């Protein structure tokens, strides 16, 4: 059973990527929708298996750790696999209707989409520093290709900027991997962690961790390394922006978080943990402020991503030299933030795409009057905004509540200010869009009506983000499942 699930999970995306290379856009769409069905069923099956039996290590093809690729299938990984399945199928469904099938280069959308998906699964399940690098590169290269599908010079400029930033980040990470391997002689994160519990920490091995985390922070667009993100996410097609903001930046953050949680205690120090937290806070404030000042609708959403990513980096100070319970609270808060931001931001980008399609311009002030013509998409946008503003009962609220408690209990009250200011500023940029759309403008009553299914998809995602707050207990309980250590390296 597990064999089939794992094979389905890892093999389908690659097989579908090759299959869709052979077809045009319209046939690729049919093939893809079949593949999405398989992928969702497999992800759900794996999630249920882990929720019932607990996590396990899985040696791919029967080859074990030093030679083969070993995967770590735990509660957190399968939760993210399922999240990817939900968000990517929504984006794939939306893209099939949204993207114009007549432009010849759009046929490359499906292969890139599937390569991206396989890279994401590889990162969630990977346990070995080098395979994580390969997964990351697969994600970056397909994401850059997806951005470049816009076809215009501005899209190419954004994708080149994105590519250079991503490559620099990967090389910094790889240099860290090289130093780690030179020092510890193993590539498994768990192996390095257990080596460190038995030996004294060698001098200078913090440098390798710092290099890796700096590279990953560049790929996650942590302030002040965020300049590549808004042009790339703003100019890509809406389903692509949704995929990039919801999932791609989370992959590099996930690796950074796993490294920090396993190796941060021996290799890190208090100053660097607080520094990362400070950069995250700066991202929250600066990103939200810039989001309030953008003239283009999708730039507002893209800068909002910069801000929401900032919250994630509060993980570093809130888990360094604090008690077990505070650290657990912070980890749960961050996980909920990742999930709720992924759902809410995908919903927001898809809804923004519908609004832009409807008014025929990407400017915020062109939205005037759209509230009467496209109330449904605007409502989805607002519901997603509720989660970003972290009002109850949304997933964003549950996440920030846990972070708030973790900050207070560890005595780091200054992060509470960041959470409050960030919430207020996000309310400001969401209401700015609403204000623009409720204005009545006398000259424009030419609106294009997008297909009904285009409007339904963001609504589903926004409702999921909103409902996450109600089921957060159950979601968190699967992530905290005991991990079966037998057969571990």
């Amino acid at each position: 059973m597990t064999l089939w699930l794992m094979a389905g999970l890892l093999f389908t995306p690659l097989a579908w990527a090759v299959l869709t290379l052979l077809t045009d856009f319209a046939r690729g769409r049919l093939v893809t929708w079949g593949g999405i069905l398989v992928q969702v069923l497999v992800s759900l099956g794996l999630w249920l298996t882990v929720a019932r039996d607990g996590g396990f290590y899985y040696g791919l093809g029967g080859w074990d750790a030093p030679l083969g690729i070993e995967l770590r299938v735990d509660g957190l990984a399968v939760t993210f696999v399922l999240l990817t399945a939900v968000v990517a199928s929504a984006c794939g469904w939306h893209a099939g209707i949204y993207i114009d099938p007549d432009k010849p280069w759009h046929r490359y959308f499906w292969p890139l989409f599937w390569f991206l998906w396989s890279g994401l699964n590889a990162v969630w399940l990977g346990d070995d520093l080098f395979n994580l690098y390969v997964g990351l590169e697969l994600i970056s290269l397909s994401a850059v290709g997806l951005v470049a599908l816009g076809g215009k010079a501005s899209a190419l400029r954004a994708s080149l900027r994105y590519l250079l930033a991503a490559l620099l980040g990967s090389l910094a990470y790889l240099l860290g991997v090289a130093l780690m391997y030179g020092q510890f002689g193993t590539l498994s994160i768990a192996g390095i962690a257990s080596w460190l519990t038995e030996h004294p920490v060698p001098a200078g091995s913090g440098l390798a961790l710092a290099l890796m985390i700096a590279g990953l922070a560049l790929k996650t667009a942590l302030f002040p390394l965020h300049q590549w993100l808004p042009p790339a996410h703003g100019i890509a097609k809406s389903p692509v922006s949704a995929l990039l903001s919801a999932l791609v930046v989370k992959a590099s953050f996930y690796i950074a978080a796993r490294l920090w949680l396993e190796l941060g205690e021996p290799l890190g120090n208090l100053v660097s943990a607080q520094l990362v937290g400070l950069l995250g806070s700066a991202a929250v404030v600066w990103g939200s402020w810039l989001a309030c000042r953008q003239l283009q609708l999708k730039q507002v959403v893209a800068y909002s991503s910069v801000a929401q990513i900032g919250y994630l980096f509060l993980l570093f100070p809130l888990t360094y030299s604090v008690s077990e319970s505070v650290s657990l609270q912070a980890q749960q808060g961050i996980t909920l933030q990742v999930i709720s931001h992924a759902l809410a931001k995908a919903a927001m980008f898809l809804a923004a795409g519908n609004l832009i399609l409807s008014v025929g311009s990407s400017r915020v002030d062109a939205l005037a009057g759209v509230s009467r013509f496209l109330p449904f998409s605007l409502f989805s946008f607002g519901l997603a905004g509720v989660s970003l503003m972290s009002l109850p009962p949304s997933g964003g609220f549950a996440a920030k509540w846990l972070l708030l408690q973790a900050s207070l209990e560890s005595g780091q009250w200054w992060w509470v200010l960041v959470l409050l200011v960030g919430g207020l500023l996000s309310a400001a940029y969401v209401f700015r869009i609403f204000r623009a759309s409720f204005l009545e403008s006398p000259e424009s009553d030419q609106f294009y009506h997008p297909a009904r299914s285009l409007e339904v998809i963001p609504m589903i995602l926004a409702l999921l983000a909103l409902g996450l707050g109600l089921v957060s207990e159950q979601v968190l309980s699967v992530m905290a499942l005991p991990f079966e250590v037998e057969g571990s390296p």
Partner: protein
Amino acid sequence: MTAPLLYALVGAMLCGIGLFGLLRLSHLLRKLLAFNIMGSGVFLVMVGLPQHQGGQDPVPQALVLTGIVVAIAATALAIVLIRRYYHLSGMTSLEGETTSREGGPE
């Protein structure tokens, strides 16, 4: 100075040169070459450093082979994008409109 350490230091130097080029040069092809130099530096560190048990360690060599494949894929993608960008805009750098308009196609 031992041989592994020498390899690692040369690798680190190549990384530094590549990083400088990637950040300071404006022509996109030069940036790409700088990326490749930086990549070679990383590979040198990766192969050179873990030789401390006397013999050679096969694992990093396998890793570097994979790394080279990834670097070639990234370089190919970058060249395609740069070429297309040049055809559409006549520019060879990402900075403002004023720089490098040397004889782009009409």
